């Protein structure tokens, strides 16, 4: 696979590390509940189709990226930097 890093350009997927689904949002703060955190840490949609997921360009620019990739074909529709998102979008 090739991932088109928005900073570095197209690179072999080998340069990246995969984390998992990008959509779950960490329930931040002291008010967060154990149940919400359990859901965030463990439960996944795991879709067969487009999947927004986190990849880390560890061998390149050290950016975390959100990659929209089809899990049936591996075709990548979109790659965005994760850092442009603002915090506080709690689950």
């Amino acid at each position: 696979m090739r991932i088109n890093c928005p900073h570095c350009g197209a690179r072999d997927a080998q340069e990246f590390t995969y984390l998992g689904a990008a959509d779950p949002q960490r329930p931040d703060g002291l008010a967060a509940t154990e149940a919400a955190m359990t859901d965030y840490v463990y439960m996944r949609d795991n879709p067969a189709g487009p999947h927004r997921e986190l990849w880390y360009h560890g061998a390149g620019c050290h950016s975390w990226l959100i990659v929209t990739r089809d899990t049936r074909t591996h075709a990548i529709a979109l790659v965005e930097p994760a850092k442009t998102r603002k915090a506080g979008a709690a689950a």
Partner: protein
Amino acid sequence: MAETATSWDPRGAWAGIAQPGSFGAKGEAGVFAIMLEGFGLASVIAEPDTTAALSQTVEALLGLTLPPTPRIARGPAHDIVWAGPDQWLLRTASRNGFTGLLSELSAHAAVSEQSDARAALRLSGPRARDVLAKGVMLDLHPTAFAIGDVALTNVAYVGAHLWRLDDAADGPVFEILLPRSMAGSFWSWFVASAREFGCRVASGRG
């Protein structure tokens, strides 16, 4: 007090790993490698909203523009190399006077001295691209990786910061920075990859 400067001899990243000479196929060397020593290097990291101020300072101090994309900006004494979003490496051929410059930049960015952190190699010669193609997962064709282009990547499982300088008469010129601790493993790959073309190795100032 043991403050005699002579007892604190620095030892560069290539010491004990590579030495000047030749290896591989006999005859005209296809690749030239210069082990760079004595350069100054620092990482400079800004936040998006401080980048403008940093950029102005750099412009004022060095007459260079911070490259916003993977490029190198070259000045008479200093280079600024893109090193990630809002991150750069400041490089100078000599470490003298480097510290003062770094403290001026610290006002607008996080600056960390990295002069000893990297082993550096300048590669040139007609077969330089062919050697790199055995480890670099990047298109280094002259049109795809132009003069001044920069890449952070991996070579044979070793992290590498690579850029292309002006061509020499006998072909392209690349510089590559490697984690100091992995210089030996990189060298092992390099020797295995370059020997079919014949390689001449020299030491040089950064």
